[in-house]
């Protein structure tokens, strides 16, 4: 094996990441080449040192913090579960439902009033009596002395519609 190839493999050889056959070839070259051997030693030293630094810099969880993180992770799952709710509860579907319901409500409740306003028709007293009796106000005046009764029927504009005794 030539120096060029060995130098390419040295980093893997330093970490025992070569196959047995390759490793033995590199090993035999190193025994006869001081230049490659020097480079190999630098690899070994640098790897050992860096591993040592990484080991000394290892951090760990504070127990309370770890427990809190686990709880948060579990809570995260719960919120995800909510997101995976059946179709009627998905936001898009809910919005669609709300729109449909609001349209239906507007048709049933708003349209008749709009119709009346647009037509400009003044309903007569008989119509008021039949369709919307709540719009006709009945007033009864009774005399204490004679017992005489006067009934007034007023429409919503307070126009006198009918009078009777």
């Amino acid at each position, binding site marked *: 094996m030539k120096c060029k190839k060995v130098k390419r493999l040295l*980093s893997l050889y330093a*970490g025992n990441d070569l196959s047995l056959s390759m490793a033995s070839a590199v090993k035999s070259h190193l025994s006869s080449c001081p230049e490659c051997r*020097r480079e190999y030693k630098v690899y070994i030293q640098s790897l050992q040192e860096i591993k040592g630094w990484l080991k000394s810099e290892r*951090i760990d*969880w504070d127990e309370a913090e770890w427990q809190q993180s686990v*709880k948060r992770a*579990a809570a995260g799952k719960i919120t*995800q579960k909510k997101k995976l709710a059946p179709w009627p509860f998905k936001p898009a579907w809910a919005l669609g439902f709300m729109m449909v319901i609001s349209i239906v409500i507007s048709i049933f409740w708003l349209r008749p009033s709009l119709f009346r306003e647009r037509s400009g028709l003044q309903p007569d007293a008989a119509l008021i009596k039949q369709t919307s009796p709540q719009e006709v106000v009945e007033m009864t005046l009774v005399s204490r002395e004679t017992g005489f009764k006067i009934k007034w029927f007023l429409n919503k504009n307070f126009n006198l519609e009918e009078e009777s005794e």
Partner: protein
Amino acid sequence: MKDEAALVDKALGGDESAFEELLHPYRKGMLNIAYQMTGNTEEARDICQTAMIKVFKHLKRFRPGKNLKNWLYKIVKNVANDFYRKKKRDERLKEEHKKRGVSAGYSPEKDFLNREIKEKIEACLKYLSPREKMVFLLRDAEGFSIKETARVMGSSSQSVRTHLCRARRKLRLEFEKIYPKGRWSNEV
């Protein structure tokens, strides 16, 4: 493996303590991989937190025959990569992090030697690409085999060897900058 499967079942049923027990053996490794990727304790904890949420969310996808350790590290790696990409996009944040980076792991009780080591690690690792860094940390810091590293990285063993080779070469060069060559010539 049986215990692991039972714990997964319990965790799927919403048992928080089973989930904690499941992750407990890997908690330090996960945190340290994230820490070495970011160089910041707080960011490492954030990455682990996000990874744990993902683990809990996707636990039902985990097949009991598979290696939980590899799966966990793969999730941490993905979250760390996402984090790295986001960070890279925002140059302003990156500069801020660099400023904080020197004192990130610093606490009053940490002595000068530790700070010096941290700076040395940062000086060595900063020239590695995220992939090279992750491969190096998994293989040399966490002791994963080449095959395990390949599974975590989602690549072939050959690709892992290539990245590992590059990473070690870059590290060796940086290391020689910290300790001039003269030191080695005396020892050989």
